[in-house]
């Protein structure tokens, strides 16, 4: 057996391949994009098809501040990842924490909006088609945000104990790809729900 295999053994010099973490995360992002596309298509297709109120125009308020928070968190996580790449652990921790705070703020904003819609406007997932599609699309995004926050908090818990170092930079960058994706999806959801949909 080894007699056959031997001549095949080569020198791996100069043989480089892409990082498997980045490739896998890109694939996950492609797959998730397809899921979001279906929800966006359903939202757009059902615009104005509700047989009862309330309509988006009557109840939706544009969450400009919280959108800004989320978009800014893309910048902060990028900054954090770059700092870790250069081995600067303390500033990394600070920017990482800021990212979590901004993400948390956005989630709080979504929760506040849902509370207002449910208790003041009487819009639930079963009220009409708008309610069904709105809560599904925004909820799908929020659930991805929660998953992202959970991962960020796990990294934070390691980082405060000094366990995150330059050598983990590649993994942090993969996580940051996911976070950018969640942000980019929000841009689409924002345009669909608050710009086109009203």
């Amino acid at each position, binding site marked *: 057996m080894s007699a056959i295999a031997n001549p095949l053994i080569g*020198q791996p010099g100069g043989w480089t391949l892409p990082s498997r973490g980045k490739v896998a995360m890109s694939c996950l992002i492609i797959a998730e994009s397809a899921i979001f596309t279906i929800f966006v298509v359903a939202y757009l297709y059902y615009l104005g098809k509700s047989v009862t109120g309330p309509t988006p125009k009557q109840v939706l308020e544009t969450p400009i501040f919280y959108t800004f928070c989320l978009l800014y968190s893309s910048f902060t996580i990028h900054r954090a990842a770059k700092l870790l790449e250069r081995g600067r652990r303390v500033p990394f921790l600070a920017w990482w924490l800021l990212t979590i705070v901004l993400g948390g703020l956005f989630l709080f904003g979504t929760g506040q909006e849902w509370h207002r819609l449910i208790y003041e406007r009487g819009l639930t997932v079963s009220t009409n088609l708008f309610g069904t599609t709105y809560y599904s699309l925004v909820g799908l995004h929020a659930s991805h945000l929660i998953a992202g926050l959970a991962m960020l908090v796990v990294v934070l818990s390691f980082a405060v104990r000094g366990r995150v170092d330059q050598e983990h930079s590649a993994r942090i960058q993969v996580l940051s790809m996911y976070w950018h994706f969640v942000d980019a999806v929000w841009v689409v959801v924002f345009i669909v729900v608050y710009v086109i949909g009203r």
Partner: protein
Amino acid sequence: MSTEAIAIERLQATGKPWTETVHEWVTTVDHKRIGILYMVYALLFLVIGGVEAMIMRIQLMHSHNNFVSPQVFNRMFTMHGTTMIFFVAVPILLGFANYLVPLMIGAWDMAFPRLNAFSFWLSALGGFLLYFSFLGGSGLYGAGNAPDVGWWAYAPLTAKAFSPGHSSDYWTIAVMLSGFGTVGTAINIIATILCMRCPGMHLGRMPLLAWLNLVMSGMVLITITPLTAAQFMLLVDRYLGGHFFDTQAGGSAVLWMHFFWIFGHPEVYVLILPCFAFVSEIIPVFSRKPIFGYPVMVGATVCIGFVSMSVWAHHMFTIGMNSYANSFFTITTMAVGVPTGIKIFNWLGTMWGGRIQFKTPMLFCIGFLFQFLLAGLTGIMLASAPFDWQLGNSYFVVAHFHYVIVGGILFALFAAFYYWYPKITGRMLSEALGKLHFWLFVIGFHITFDVMHVPGILGMPRRIYTYEPGRGWDTLNLVVSLGALIQTIAILIFVWNLISSYRKGARAGNDPWDAWTLEWSVSSPPPVYNFASLPAVASRRPLWDLKHPEDPDSRYE
């Protein structure tokens, strides 16, 4: 050194208690073992799905038969379809991909071994849940049993009013879990192929099997996920009172059809691409020639990947789309036949002038070529919207897609089993039983599915549990059912061959077929670590280079 290591392992294996062995298999992250788990799991469901098919065929053997009730018949075709697609075809193909891709590209394992195990167990849980519905589907309501909404579960059949109890939810969650598992493995396959190739293995030197699985996995990412999204919507409708597919509240049943078939049609190509991969590896070896037109094969595969994404609504000609949509989907559907035709010509070109050895794997490949071509031709017929209006939802359609799935996919799978079984187990499958299996299966297949076209043309709709006498369908259905019986016998011979050859088959050695790809350079079965040290390749046929140093392929590439 490595042979010693294996010997020691064997020694330990004999003294192990069976619980230890089970524990090892359950906790394994080795791509070969997970591949075998996938295959065994799928073969189990193949038998279950086959029993369901036989129940339907017995019921339809003559008019006014009372073998099963209409309710049971509905459950049988739903479970048969769901089982065969999600819990036989998908896992068995992922199993082969899992087993073969790392070996063929010269890697020690998949890129993410634990994700690999996780994906398998998710799919396994899905299959378990689907069948648990026979017990749990009644729930507190006492209504419903196994899912009975058809494998495409059109709205409003899935609405609470028409599908009380939990049977549809078992279907939804089972299929969703299998979808998550499939996407996980697809990500793993892509990462493995792009990031784990051995030195010298450029994309242009990869075995076609790796190429086709790469394209298949890319398709999985964007075809399985729309179904997952639609299933989420269905759950929102059923449990949270949503209105996605509730027409009384402005929702649309047609949107579900679109979402289902955006998944459903590319899925056929997800299943057939790995089968093309098997055929592309097996035909050259038994024709003693390298594959004809390698770059064209790769190009045609990528082309199929793209075009097949835009054909889905040919399943929906009969719902009344406008003429632009009908024309568009007719044209795209016919267009996807072009790259597929290129592949058939390339396989023929490979066989042309070759010194063909008619071993069992090759016989199944030739059967595949012939039958897949015919299936493609009835596909082109159904792609034409006016023709489809006439025959949509008839037994002609059932015959067409079984021609693809049995005549194409299953034949290629059998070829793969006969070809790689020696590598996986270290034993050859019996050629005599293999040839008997082949001929019985070919005869049974053609009796069933050639004849099945005719009642379709005579107007017999699919999914009916019985029919009136005097329509001229009785004899035809009897013949179809008899063919199914012959196929069942052939499958039992195959299963017996798998079991008996595992104990008594001839020793295979490393390379029983005198083949050219890397998996044949290691022992059979391969050691846990695959390669003692990573190989390096200089051409598409590394073992040819090794066996013929005076005339290596690398000189011409």
